[in-house]
């Protein structure tokens, strides 16, 4: 299967002078809908994902919670996050959210990625990583407003959910969707998923969840993984789902630089860059700064 058949609409680190083939753009936009209100947190999706994708994470430890693995890793592309919540005087709720790639319409990872063709977006909305092109720089991690991609220490490449692009390519639904016991994960065209969501929201509102709603955040142009939330006004209750995700400042700056570079002439800049790379080596952050950044992240969490 060659690239041309892949209906690519966006390609990382590719200037507008050499865009990916665009002709096959007449395609249904797909979406995965995760209805948190009927999710039992069984982790069937988690297991089916690893099984289908032939990945096996480490056998870890219990950390005093049901979350296991405790975070996404290069070998766990989706994890369930459990949060106990009780409003003053209200009933106890166990809010369980399947976390993983949101397949943004305007993907921060793709924008941040410096390696041409390492991240692609297909016409159906799927954002996919191409490991061969990945240079392991980790910019996709920084660029993702949902903190999803992870670098694998064994091969220094980034990994995340592909929305089972291999299954989609032959007309099947993603593995997690198929396996979901309660129908909390559904798959179809984005249009259909919004309709399903509307029905669910109506039901939830009738059951007393006045703020039930759909999570399809505009800050990233909407997503191809959407949530139905009982408390759509407070997405942060669901293990810190960002209320208004935006592509980070860094990535915007990077995108801002590439374009002028292209107009100024790639050759000059390229030569300079090449010299810099070969004589000085790739730029690395010093440990202190790395540490600082981590702290900032934790505070913001």
């Amino acid at each position, binding site marked *: 299967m060659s690239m041309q058949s892949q209906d690519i609409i966006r390609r990382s680190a590719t200037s507008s002078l050499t865009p990916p083939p665009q002709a096959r753009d007449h395609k249904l936009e797909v979406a995965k809908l995760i209805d948190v209100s009927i999710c039992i*947190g069984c982790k069937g999706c988690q297991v089916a994902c690893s099984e289908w994708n032939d990945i096996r994470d480490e056998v870890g430890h219990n950390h005093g919670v049901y979350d296991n693995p405790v975070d996404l890793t290069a070998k766990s592309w989706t994890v369930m996050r459990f949060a106990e919540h009780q409003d003053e005087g209200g009933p106890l709720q*166990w809010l369980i959210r399947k976390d993983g790639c949101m397949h943004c319409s305007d993907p921060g990872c793709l924008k941040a990625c410096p390696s041409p*063709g390492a991240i692609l977006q297909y016409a159906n909305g799927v954002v996919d990583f191409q490991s061969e092109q990945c240079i392991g720089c980790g910019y996709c991690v920084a660029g993702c407003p949902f903190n999803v991609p992870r670098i694998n220490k064994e091969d220094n490449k980034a990994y995340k959910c592909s929305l089972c692009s291999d299954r989609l390519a032959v007309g099947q639904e993603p593995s997690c969707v198929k396996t979901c*016991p309660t129908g909390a994960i559904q798959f179809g065209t984005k249009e259909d998923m919004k309709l399903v969501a509307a029905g669910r929201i109506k039901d939830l509102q009738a059951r007393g969840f006045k703020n039930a709603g759909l999570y399809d955040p505009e800050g990233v142009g909407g997503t191809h993984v959407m949530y139905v939330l009982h408390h759509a006004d407070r997405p942060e209750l669901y293990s810190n789902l960002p209320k208004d995700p935006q592509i980070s400042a860094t990535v915007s700056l990077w995108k801002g630089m590439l374009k002028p570079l292209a107009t100024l002439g790639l050759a000059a800049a390229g030569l300079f860059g090449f010299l810099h790379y070969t004589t000085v080596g790739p*730029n690395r952050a010093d440990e202190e700064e790395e540490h600082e950044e981590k702290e900032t992240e934790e505070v913001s969490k």
Partner: protein
Amino acid sequence: MQVTRRQFFKVTAAGLSASSLAVLGYAPAALAEVRQFKLTRATETRNNCTYCSVGCGVLLYSMGDGAKNAKKKIFHVEGDPDHPVSRGSLCPKGAGLLDYVHSPQRLKYPEVREPGSKEWKRISWEEANERIARLMKDDRDANFIQKNDKGELVNRWLSCGMLGSSAASNETGILDFKFARALGIVSLENQARLCHGPTVAALARSFGRGAMTNNWVDIKNANVILVMGGNPAEAHPVGFKWAVEAKVKNNATMMVVDPRFSRTAAVADFYAPIRAGADAAFLLGLINYLLSNDKIQHEYVKSYTNASLIVREDFNFNEGLFSGYNAEKRTYDKSSWAYELAGDGLALKDESFQHPRCVLNLLKKHVERYTPEMVSSICGTPQADFLRVCEQMASTSVANRTATILYALGWTHHTGGAQIIRCAAMVQLLLGNIGMPGGGINALRGHSNVQGFTDIGILNTALPGYLALPQDKQQTLKDYVEQRTPKAPVAGSVNYWKNTSKFFVSLMKGLWGEHATPENSFGYDWLPKWDRSYDLLSFFDLVHQGKVNGYIVQGFNVVAAMPDSRKVRDSLAKLKYMVVIDPLQTETASFWQNHGEFNDVDSSQIQTTVFRLPSSCFAEESGSIANSGRWLQWHWAGQEPPYEARHDGRILGGIYMKLKELYEKEGGTCPEPVLNLNWHYHDPYDPHPEEVAKEANGYALADLLDDKGNLIAKKGDLLSSFAHLRDDGTTSSCCWIYTGQWTQAGNMMARRDNTDTGLGCTPGWAFSWPANRRVLYNRASMDESGKPWDPKRALLHWDGTKWTGSDVADYAATAAPGSGVPPFIMLPEGLGRLFSVGAMYDGPFPEHYEPTESPLAANPLHPEVSKSPVARSFKADAERFGTREEFPFVATTYSITEMFRHWTKHARLNAIAQPEQFVEISEKLAAKKGIKAGDEVKVSSKRGFIRGKAVVTKRVMTLQVAGQEVEQIGIPCHWGYEGTTRKGFLANTLSPGIGDANSQTPEYKGFLVNVEKA
């Protein structure tokens, strides 16, 4: 926009390098492509998940296209989208099946552990079979009991027991039955004893059959779903699909009553906490609510229950005791728990409900003590929560609304387990919810084929098809038939057990073949007779006393599964030999091995010879399993057993043929049943599932004619209905309720037509015993005139000559509307039992008794009779019960979604999802004990201790019970010292060795422990 120095460099450096690469012609080649779809031409094999009783359809994908030169190996498993229940879904257990099939702990070769040895030694199958047969024969010849003290013929072998596996196929089960009973083994048991024993005891004595009344898909038709004593989102996630469907598509209300806020509660509309072990009080309170607020379905109660029948005058209930109690023997004389009969043998009744001793009035009186205040005090459930559950349930007393009750081991695992389920049966009868689509009592069975192993009677006093193994007092076939055939106390009642002799004689023909003749009472004498129960708890007491020499343990990790693991382990050390047949390494097989503090034994002191024989797993065999909805589903092998592993049939065939050879050569004690066993398989060393399935179904052994002389079946034909069975030796059937599963038309269990004929009924999918009925007691979904109580829930209609519709009528097919034939055809009276005549051991009405280990000083209802007055306990177990002073907290064990019993700990994918033992405690207790989430804690009971990580949670609540605070500790029961998960203790180290008064299913819930930071 804020940009740090580092971020700036990051951006510029990468930008430059990327741009430069492109300029220099390093533009990446067009490699972008999605991963190849890996299943394109793989072999797809239909199978069923081996874990729980939902029986999900799975597709096994194997390498190779089936060519002879390609060795099949399964490399992927996913859900079967055609399956009516699972519709392609698999829970985390099912989704991880691949890692179970290829677990590094799969057994590869036969092995032996010699007495005193520290290790396994590989041996050949030949050596294994020879040594095992020799040990068994020597033991049997020396210890077989032909006559009891009274000189009665009993032909039993008590020094050897056998355990079957509820994950094995029905065909393996039939072979287990034949093998064990021919040898005279009485203690033949399976995991059903440890899970749903009380279900059979309670439901059979309420409605006639001991099974889930409806089926998985039918749950979608409910208006109200009460989940209590169960946690289907975790234990049966894919079946729970249909509860969610009811919510989403039928606007149903879902309520959960549970000691902890479970994952089922996470998606319910309402959750109410309850103290583990107080369920009967809650439900009796609900019955009181329904009766005192007149929220019952009057016409249903009058026509279809025994509410109007009159009970004997000498029946009474006083201060916690029913009439007939013998304090010395701790048993009841149940003769007063009966209907008052008229001279014609029929029960007296009063349909005006004026008679003070009609069942309804006795019930009203019995439950009036269970006021909302009393319920709240005993259960710790806030009164408002209790009343909310009552109101919702009461809303279904109208004809066009139904409630379904979903329960599992949260109800069965108590000394009063069967009576809790009886309460539920009574609630549903009062509400008119039995026989109704979207109603019923859905007993969610545990293992994938525990329903099948219950059906086949792999239980010590049972025979296949819910027939009973004869007792000493039934010395002749005539005695047996007379004592086991009930008489109908209500006119017109079908009383289907009147056919007992036909089912029994056909079974004998299946068991002994041509050796069963009218002259020898069809081999009746060869069957072992029982004098007392040899259920798991009581048999292990004998093992503990050193009275047992051998144990055949097939697919049953009994050390991990039984309560009080240490005692069980120490008991096994007293055996002379043990034969473990299993696909996996288990703590049972390696009980003699030292695993540090997890299993601190001195191997050199243990003299048991242990054989470990590798068996196939589900994915490597063909056969049928029965799901909780009684569907017999046929599955096919996706690969060969690995290494030297063998199919169960071949393993049993190998041992049996060796034994037979020895008896032929040497003679021995009572050789007849061994030699006369019907084992005419095409290869007696390797019986094939197809031939066993046909044998279970049954054959015509002569031309069969109906009463008008028409030919029903030719000699040699497979039978199509159990109605054709005879007691003259002209038919055979190894499990009468399965007749119809494999007929002249083929294998009915392999059918795959998933057409919905209405209300989620799929009669063309597989075969549902009995007679392909999908909703049991479905005649009760209509009034006496045949009009459906709810027109939207019409399953059946009368076509002028017979009942027809989307289901098969569970009724006399030709009994016309208005004929007065009552709907519960398996009960002698044909009426649902609010009062269970004579059958239960601990009372015709349920009553709340405290658990064996109670956090209360006394039962608030009757302090003198706090605990079950009839629950059996053995001395060695009773010495190991703890007190509330020493162990102040209530513990409850359970399963969690990611794991299945002690099996998934061998599967990497599941080990990743739940790697390690944890225990759940409330925030309040944690604060008191200085325990933080993630700390290691030590939980101890009188019987031992375990360690685990603390999950400190709001989901476990501190309860107010009878004026005191009660803390509950949640203990998932899944880990051990063999497996891929983190090594750990067996959680059942903590639970006590005492069982339900009716079925001896252990009290795994509601016992006492202490907790401290480790």
